[in-house]
């Protein structure tokens, strides 16, 4: 789960990484008050999870509390779903660095990635100037050692107090990374100030959904999701993505659902939602269908090829969901796998016309959505 900037910075600060003095504001009045207390000039940073906030105008400078209030009102009214602003005292920046920790799935280590030029996206830098990037692998069982830090700071051509400060930040970033089981901990830009200090200008922290301890601190909330239905699906533990097309996918298995998603597009159709109720969720047909029906669609397409997630159990679940929710959209099914004969019988008894081939089922759903058949 990707955290908001203010949460990442809180975690960084608790680990001893310097962050700019700042306050959280939930409306324009609070932004004005925050700016007054912090003093001008200040920066207003919209707390949204998308990248590229600068280009999207979601980061604004204000020279006074009045200007902060006016600009905050604009940000809250923007179409980006801004619920919170981080108001920070502006910093006199001498230079910007890039520093992050990620996992290397091939070498099976953690990996520091650093660059003497921060502020730009690391992907851009990696593509255009790979020679400027310093990488230092760190074995998770060995932990961070002084030579790793030296490798990093010499690689960045830092010296003196700045080298020491950046080294300390790297050590503390490693602590946060390990404590949250993070996929990514990033400081971009890492400011070196005109006074010679070092401050995390931004913070990105993607924590592991499977780390119970870290997750407990950040309970699921609607603000992490683009839509209410995505939030409700997450509460059920059902993978769900919202789109704006015609065909609601209620499929089982991540790989198969993704393939059905492709096949719908190849056949000229559009997807209303991606929903996957395989694995441990295969008995959750009622919840799955309820989520699909929250979204306007022209047809519900059910494709499964389950083994542990047995076909007969899925067919029973689907029929039960139809009885409970009485959907008005037509349903196309292609439920196969363990005990598929029983599944077919169950579906036929419920008045459905079960199909056996995924691509045929996709064609039928696309035809129904296009009004070519009922």
């Amino acid at each position, binding site marked *: 789960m990707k955290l908001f900037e203010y949460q990442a910075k809180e975690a960084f600060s608790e680990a001893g990484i310097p962050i700019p003095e700042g306050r959280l504001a939930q409306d324009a009045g609070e932004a004005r008050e925050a700016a007054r207390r912090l003093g001008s000039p200040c920066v207003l940073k919209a707390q949204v999870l998308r990248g590229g906030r600068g280009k999207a105008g979601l980061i604004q400078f204000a020279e006074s509390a009045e200007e902060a209030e006016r600009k905050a009102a604009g940000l809250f009214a923007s179409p980006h779903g801004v619920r919170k602003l981080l108001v920070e005292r502006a910093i006199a920046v001498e230079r910007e660095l890039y520093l992050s920790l990620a996992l290397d799935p091939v070498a099976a280590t953690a990996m520091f990635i650093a660059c003497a030029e921060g502020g730009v996206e690391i*992907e851009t830098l990696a593509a255009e100037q790979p020679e400027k990037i310093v990488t230092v692998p760190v074995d*998770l*069982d060995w932990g961070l050692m002084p030579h790793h830090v030296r490798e990093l700071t010499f690689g960045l051509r830092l010296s003196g107090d700045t080298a020491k400060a950046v080294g300390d930040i790297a050590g503390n970033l490693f602590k946060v990374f390990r404590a949250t089981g993070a*996929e990514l901990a990033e400081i971009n830009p890492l400011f070196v100030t005109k006074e010679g200090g070092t401050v995390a200008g931004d913070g990105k922290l993607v924590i592991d959904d*499977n780390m119970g301890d870290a997750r407990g601190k950040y309970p699921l909330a609607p603000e992490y999701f683009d839509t209410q239905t995505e939030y409700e699906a997450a509460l059920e533990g059902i993978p769900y993505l919202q789109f704006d097309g015609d065909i609601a996918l209620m499929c089982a298995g991540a790989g198969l659902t*993704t*393939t059905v998603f492709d096949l719908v597009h190849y056949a000229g159709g559009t997807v209303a939602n991606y929903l996957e109720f395989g694995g441990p969720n295969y008995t959750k047909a009622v919840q799955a269908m309820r989520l699909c029906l929250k979204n306007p669609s022209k047809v519900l397409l059910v494709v499964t090829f*389950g083994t542990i997630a047995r076909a007969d159990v899925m067919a029973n679940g689907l029929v039960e969901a139809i009885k409970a929710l009485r959907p008005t959209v037509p349903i196309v099914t292609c439920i*196969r796998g363990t005990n598929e004969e029983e599944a077919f019988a169950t579906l036929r008894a419920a008045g459905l016309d079960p199909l056996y081939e995924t691509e045929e089922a996709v064609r039928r759903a696309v035809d129904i959505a296009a009004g070519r058949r009922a």
Partner: protein
Amino acid sequence: MSVFIDRNTSVEVQGATGKEGAYWLKHMKDMGTRVVFGVTPGKEGQDVDGVPVFHSARRGMKAHPAELAMLFVPPRFTKDAVFEALDAGIRKIVTIAEGVPLHELIQIRKAALSCGAMVIGGNTSGVISPGKGMAGCIPYWIERVYRKGDIGVMTRSGSLTNEVTAEVVKGGFGISTLIGVGGDSIPGTRFAELLPLYEQDQETKALVIIGELGGSMEEEVAEAMEAEIFTKPLVAFIGGRTAPEGKRMGHAGAIVSGGKGSVAGKVAALEKAGGLTAAKPSQVGGLLRQALG
């Protein structure tokens, strides 16, 4: 010979007395797999379908040496169970659990690399050489999916494997060995690391890989083909061609980020290396016939 598991491979099952473990242990045996002992702490002296159970892998190994450990263990105990098998001297491990913390997956892979072991999974249904041996939870009895033959299969997905493998069988072929490396972003063993096994295996004439968006495993296969580490015909189906960037499509590993991991890039790399790629599962059988001349 087969790849990874055949009828002589001795297997121990950790988590043998659990609901899943006991159910699949029996199926593994019924298919002909040589299951020599089970492990459940506190249950030594019991048996599961005639297979003796021990407190630990080391205690079991003293009585019944095993080459392969099959783990039916929940995600929070998986790291310990893998290390227990390694400590007992086992160098082939299959783990099915989904949801093992990322840092632990890194540590598991690192440990395996360090001692020359191979950990298959997590988040997989396992490994099967039809008619010979199975380590996992694969319904070998579905004949139209798991018929014995001479096509190797490597996959990142369970449900999609059934879909694609059914097309292999429909095309008149069968499976030599199928290995599910799993849907996680940090699999214990990567596609390219299995290629030398399929290259050597005389019972494998061609290889099907079932990949998806995200990561770099398919690109690594293309590199191994370019380097002639793998020279047999290869057909790939890769899901997620129309997936939008930045969205995680079900599996933890299935996400395109920073422009990397796109299906278009994977398809281009594999085709350049001489592989054939199917846009739809139904094309796999025909491409195999084409590849095998």
